[in-house]
């Protein structure tokens, strides 16, 4: 039930933003993310944006993952 989907903010009018997900435009409340800007991605749960997606973190995560795999698999090779 705690599902939240990332949607792109395309227009802001006061406490409400128009967001786009897969071509569908939806109005969501941005009361909980007042610092949001047009172009940001927000996580939307039941009509309310609960978090702004951090693009840098998203990219860094992939790098971190590959790095970690590298280290762990080197360790595995040494154990073989």
């Amino acid at each position: 039930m705690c599902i939240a989907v990332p949607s792109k903010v395309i227009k802001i009018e006061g406490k409400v933003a128009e967001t786009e997900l897969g071509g569908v435009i939806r109005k969501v409340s941005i009361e909980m993310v007042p610092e949001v800007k047009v172009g940001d991605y927000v996580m939307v749960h039941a009509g309310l944006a609960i978090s702004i997606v951090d693009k840098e973190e998203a990219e860094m995560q992939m790098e971190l993952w590959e790095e970690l795999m590298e280290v762990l698999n080197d360790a595995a090779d040494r154990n073989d």
Partner: protein
Amino acid sequence: MMQQTEMIEKTKRAIETLNPGGPFNIMEVCGSHTMAISKFGLRQLLPKNIRLISGPGCPVCVTAQNEIDSVIELANKNVVIATFGDLIRVPGNRSSLQAERAAGKEVKVFYSPLDALKYAEENPKKEVVFIGIGFETTVPTVAVTIKEAKEKNIKNYSVYCLHKTMPEALRALLEGGSNVQGFLLPGHVSAITGSKIYEFLPKEFGVGGVISGFEAMDILMSIIMLLKNYKKPVIEIQYKRVVRKEGNLEAQKIIEEIFEPCDSTWRGLGEIKGSGLKIRDKYKDFDAALKFDIKPIGEEIEIKGCRCGDVLKGNIYPNECPLFGKVCTSENPVGPCMVSSEGSCAAFYKYGA
């Protein structure tokens, strides 16, 4: 970027390298994690001693039987019941919202409580009651409607508040002796609360946790983080693209403004101190419990033969329940863990063990 199959192979090897050897139970406490784990078949990637078990992470499933009964009672008070879709099939002792709707009562499904408020505003002659079910993720949305109803003086909207909060349930599980070595912590609950609320897990119980995202790679990464820290358990965030350490302060502020903690009864876990929320006095005009004099009453009666309670505590896998797949199926569910689309029994039934 690595190819998918190569990635999975590498992940498997990484997990084997970190395998502590002894039994290592990882409990997820979010229905979306339950579904993702089954859907992606993640259990098959793990060595036998590392088990993924489900906890009380599905809000509909943990709603107590007598709470469901009180919702049914409310439906008979000449009101419009506004609810999330998941709740309407859940059977109470005598009926369900679906059966009440078939019998002519007004039960409306809304995607958002904000839509329910709008409906109330457009239909001033109808009493609209939103059924507030869900964890910290959902609470701010409901809080926004109560605040807005007060500001706009919408008098025909109220909330029947059955919300529950996560940390005290985790404490109750561990105090009850649940055999858990690490928690996969809920991503969107934590987007609201931040990570601090879980610090008692390593401090008081020596159990670590990782706040995880919902993609297969997120969950695998979180499992690796848990295994890496098993000697020195800590709380970490894997889902950093969405979850900040301090959580969403605006959302915390509005929760605090509208609600205060209260005791709450969970299916399978019983009454847990401070694990529920009730509407503060200042907003009592919007509290359906007071407005319609409704509360959960009577003993908590379990459905005969149904072991949802044990499933919710991670004591058994769904397919260890005698009803599973025989009398209790997705088409004809008996217990809430099969009724809810994100219940552990529904996940096992749909995707296999």
